[in-house]
């Protein structure tokens, strides 16, 4: 099979790169070995929340100089200040074109809530989620927090407590979905996605809206667990119109409905632009000739290789098995590229789970243009993007989402530039 670009990995990074290339008329294939880490999305994309020394960041673009000084290996240092702003805008534009509506800006972090109701800075948040321009500043006085009977992946008490301490009056309302959905069976698998599917049924949704209307009294905001909108992203607006008050979503534990919707919308966008997406396949051999990748083989396609002029590796980190930890080694199981890591295993992790973990910043070595390095030689037609890259701690620095999207767009523009 011959494509212009072969992309390994179909999560946020691979899809972003693929969409950008398809937009420019390139023929791409994405090979994805199963669904991506977007299924655990918080509802936000972080760009840069802190510097490696722990200093909090309120304006990511202004912090780049200091980031460069503290961590010259960071992907943002390679991208550079000028491109950074352009790519951050591009990322938001690309999401919007895929019908993923976000709020936020690369020169001012805003604030989201975690499922434990902790306030955290972030870059882009799903437009229907609760967020604030400044930490914990909300104009609401009376709010209702909704939960569903037997739904265990959402803890309204954390949120209720937080909002009460901010001086709000909070009404906690529990709704029994079994009655609303007229479902005689016990909903044993009460997960966010199953609840979202109930609401995708118009009749159940109308029932729910009616019951809610009778219960919220004079609330000026109704906050729901983010279990709505698997299929229809505008369901929160619809509910808001019916109730006549602001309706916003609070994050739940996984699976993440908004993350799954984002994955689906990005994939749809990629395919509508003519891209080929192969799900559930695994690359089992990559052939090199000199400093070029020539073809790749996969489990499903076996003797029929996939060929491209360019290749992009967006295979993710340890969760997605883009990186694999062996007893004394960290490897890239797909291409066997050089990895940036500490060889002494004792230094991989800190005993306290919440401390900075060194393994978080291990990843594939690249040159200044994110071209892969194998046996200390640069591979000219293989870019590496997203969580596969080394040099940053996505959790501590709060930069995982931005690193995924921006390096993917960087690689796409490099590939397009090279062809000009």
């Amino acid at each position, binding site marked *: *099979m*011959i494509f212009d670009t072969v992309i390994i990995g179909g999560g946020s990074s691979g899809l972003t790169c693929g969409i950008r290339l398809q937009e420019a008329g390139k023929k791409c294939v994405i090979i994805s*070995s*199963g*669904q*991506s*880490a977007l*299924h*655990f999305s918080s509802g936000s994309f972080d760009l840069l929340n802190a510097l490696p020394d722990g200093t909090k960041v309120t304006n990511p673009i202004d912090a780049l100089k200091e980031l460069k000084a503290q961590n010259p290996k960071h992907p943002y240092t390679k991208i550079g200040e000028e491109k950074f702003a352009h790519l951050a805008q591009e990322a938001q534009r690309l999401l919007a074109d895929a019908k993923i509506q976000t709020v936020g800006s690369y020169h001012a972090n805003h604030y989201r809530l975690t499922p434990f109701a902790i306030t955290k800075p972030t870059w882009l948040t799903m437009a229907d989620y609760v967020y604030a321009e400044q930490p914990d500043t909300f104009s609401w006085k009376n709010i209702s927090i909704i939960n569903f009977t037997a739904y265990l992946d959402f803890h309204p008490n954390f949120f209720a407590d937080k909002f009460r301490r901010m001086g709000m009056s909070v009404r906690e309302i529990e709704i029994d979905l079994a009655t609303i959905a007229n*479902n005689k*069976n*016990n*909903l*044993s*698998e009460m*997960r966010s*996605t*199953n609840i979202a*599917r109930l609401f995708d049924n118009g009749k159940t949704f109308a029932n729910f809206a009616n019951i809610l209307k009778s219960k919220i009294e004079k609330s000026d905001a109704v906050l729901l667990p983010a279990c709505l909108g698997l299929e229809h992203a505008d369901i929160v607006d619809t509910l808001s119109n019916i109730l006549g008050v602001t309706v916003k979503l609070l994050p739940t534990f*996984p*699976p993440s409905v908004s993350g*799954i919707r984002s994955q689906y919308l990005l994939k749809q966008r990629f*395919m509508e632009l003519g891209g*080929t997406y*192969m*799900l*559930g*396949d*695994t690359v089992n051999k990559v052939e090199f000739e000199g400093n070029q990748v020539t073809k790749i083989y*996969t*489990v*499903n*396609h*076996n*003797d*029929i290789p996939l060929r491209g002029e360019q290749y992009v590796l967006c295979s993710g980190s340890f*969760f*997605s*098995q883009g990186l694999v930890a062996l007893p004394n080694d960290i490897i890239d199981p797909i291409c066997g590229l050089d990895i940036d890591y500490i060889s002494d295993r004792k230094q991989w992790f800190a005993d306290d789970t919440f401390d900075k973990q060194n393994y978080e910043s291990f990843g594939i070595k690249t040159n200044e243009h994110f071209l892969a390095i194998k046996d200390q030689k640069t591979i000219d037609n293989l870019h590496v993007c997203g969580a596969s890259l080394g040099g940053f701690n996505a959790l501590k620095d709060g930069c995982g989402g931005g690193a995924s999207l921006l390096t993917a767009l960087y690689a796409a523009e490099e590939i397009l530039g090279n062809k000009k």
Partner: protein
Amino acid sequence: MESINKSDNNFEQCLKCTICTVYCPVLAVNPQFPGPKHGGPDQERLRLKMPSFYDEANKYCMNCKRCEVACPSNVRIGDIIQKAKLKYSRHRPSVRDFFLSHTDLVGTLSSPFAPLVNKALGWNVTKQILDGVLKVDRHRTFPKYSHEKFTSWMKKHADEQKQYPHQLCYFHGCYVNYNFPDLGKDLVRIMNAFGYGVELLEEEKCCGVALISNGFVGQARKQAETNLKSIRKAVSQEKAVILTSSTCAMTLRDEYPHVLNLDNKDVRDHIEIATRFIYRMIHETKAFDVSKLKFRNRPLKIAYHTPCHLEKLGWEYYSLELLRLIPNINLTVLKPNCCGIGGTYGFKKENYENAQKIGAPLFKEIEEGDFDFIVSDCETCKWQIEMSTSKKCIHPISVFAQALD
């Protein structure tokens, strides 16, 4: 280091990430099903301790393998559930299960009386009896039996097929043989146009997928051994073995080793669907020259539905590429939704309602699309789509054959 895992599957690779539960079509409509994660790797742990932990609600798994396609850790969730069903279930297959799964027997008995059988299966009274006595849902439309079996037709044309410079073997499957020989004939026509004569395998039995899912594992293994023997013979004569049924292909390639514990490593890579064979011949070996084919150039607006088992094989691409060779075609790929039939699953009275609920989003998309017809590689998807929508559903091989001048 000796492995501690005493099970013969990879359940310990499960990270409990829950992604599979999002993509399970059954779980979305039937809360009684424990779901792929729980019924698969979670309960496997318990079953290994004590077989009595087996949960009979795993019977609701339709073995679509969507969980495996979604799993980021490559856990063979569907296989784990299938094997657990066969190993631990105390449920004995019923008479209905026997008739639904023994396709060769039922097909052989029905074919000679095809016109009568077809008529009788359409009668309300027959449907009521099947529903009441056998628990085969009365809403189902049965596939029609063909008076002449595909194998009989092939035998008549064997000499003519031998005249072609190259030969390949066709695993036709029960559907083509007993119900719809036209699909087999379309395949023969295309292969002939490319210079290939088509042969039958020395002996072909039903692939056994329905036997496996209905608990007749001994019979399934017997038929699988016969099939593997015939395939080995064809492969030793350097003949490709191709199929039109995506489910038979998945069964021969993956269920034989994973569920029936039959080693097929030596021939597995030689078993493929026809559209993949054609793709290779056109694009990789360049043995087929499409420019020599003459097309009718009739405008077509069609939609392609990916069968679950073809998605598991990862081969949808080949069927789509074949369709894209047809000039003047407007092709939509439908959203990745299961049709709900799951082979014999949807025929059972206890599953009928859920099967239709699973398929509802697909049916809706089809009805809203204003397509000339639907295209899919799976015979049971075809029955389900034709019964539940106003559209015909045609195999890509037939679409291609009919587009030829």
